[in-house]
């Protein structure tokens, strides 16, 4: 029987550091100069872009853990992959919500069926499906395999969602940083606020995933001790 581990220094540290960075990020976000066209409304970008970035990058991290699981069949990797996707889904929902709140004053609507929004909605559906599948399969090994496959195949949508604003004519503005040209479409005066917020979200992401995997591990240990209780 494995021993339950207490929350370690790294988890606690990243949680505290993340919250501190979030505070600094919020301060910078509210003191950055207003946008020439949008005024103060644009400030939602400091929530929208970091959560999108962290959420999308997280899906690739989940792919790495899913591949590790398929290669080694260690339940630990399955638990971490699920934790990563769970937290990623949280950030992606935040992206969607902040995007809708931003869309209303700038485009006049909360939602429109244009490429970026549509591909993003598909992405969310795929990963919500991930959890539906997990809840439907009882055998832990098969559950881990099936969900690993969804995680790997689903990540195909990430670059498509990301590039959709370039590939199709879209109402959504283009990427803040364009990796194909290495150019930034962002005013240098507003840049520190964005970068600090991205950093804060990344640290918080690590903290959340660590807490979630710890919980999952404890659940697994309890299940092992009394299979009927689960």
């Amino acid at each position: 029987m494995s021993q339950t581990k207490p929350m370690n220094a790294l988890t606690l540290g990243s949680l505290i550091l993340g919250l501190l960075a979030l505070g600094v990020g919020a301060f910078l976000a509210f003191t950055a100069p207003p946008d020439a066209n949008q005024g103060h409304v644009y400030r939602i970008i400091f929530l929208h872009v970091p959560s999108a970035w962290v959420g999308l990058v997280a899906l690739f991290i989940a792919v790495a853990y899913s591949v590790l699981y398929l290669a080694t069949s260690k339940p630990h990797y399955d638990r971490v992959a699920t934790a990563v996707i769970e937290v990623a889904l949280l950030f992606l929902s935040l992206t969607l919500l902040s995007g809708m709140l931003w869309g209303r004053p700038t485009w006049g609507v909360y939602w429109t069926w244009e490429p970026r929004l549509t591909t993003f909605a598909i992405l969310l559906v795929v990963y919500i499906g991930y959890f539906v599948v997990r809840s439907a399969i009882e055998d832990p090994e098969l559950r881990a395999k099936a969900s690993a496959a969804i995680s790997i195949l689903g990540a195909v949508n990430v670059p498509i969602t990301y590039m959709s604003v370039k590939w199709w004519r879209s109402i959504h503005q283009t990427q803040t940083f364009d990796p194909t040209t290495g150019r930034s479409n962002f005013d240098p005066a507003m840049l520190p606020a964005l970068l600090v917020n991205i950093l804060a979200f990344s640290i918080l992401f690590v903290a959340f995933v660590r807490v979630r995997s710890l919980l999952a591990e404890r659940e697994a240990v309890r299940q092992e001790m009394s299979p009927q209780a689960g």
Partner: protein
Amino acid sequence: MTLLTRIFWLALRDLTLELRGRTGLLAAVFFLFTMLLILGLALGPNQDDLRKAAPGVLWVALAFAGSLLAGRAFGLEVEDNTLDDLLLVPGSREWLYYGKLLFQLLLLLIVGGALLFLTAGLFYLPLSALPGILVTLVLGSIGYASVSTFYAGMLARLRGREALLPLVLFPVVVPVVLASVKATASLVEGLPLGEVFNWWQLLLVFDVIYVTLCGLLFPYVLEG
């Protein structure tokens, strides 16, 4: 026997069994026919309305029929206890996936062809769009079959797989079905070929990625 001939023989054997048994194909085509009649009745009889609905109808019907057919990929193997014999063939197991994929693709194309014929008649599809739709059908079917075969293999021995298969299948094939719908819709509206080409490109990218990834992952998820 080289791997390629092995793949062809497996697909040929399954197709022969399917055509002789007929239950799977007949069920799928009959289901589609019923569905088209219901949708035609609900959305018609205005010609323009029907034509506008046709791409959605075509792909929703094919997606449902595909989930019916997906179980056929490994259904007979499990019923007849022949899956173990296949697994005993020495060497790596990717060929098994590609053989089954070819079989599923041919099934989907047969059903899709019948479906296209019926939809074109019942929903007034313009004749000039048909060659383009046929290309979309092939590209979309490859993407669909690649995922459905993969999951059918993974769940082959599981009880209650018929209920579970659509559940795991749909989240992953949604992008393929949507791209196919958009390509078909652009064709029916008579948009310039450049517009359609973007969607074909996307479908092709999906196909290549899914077929490669599923083939690579298949040996890991197959039981036994």
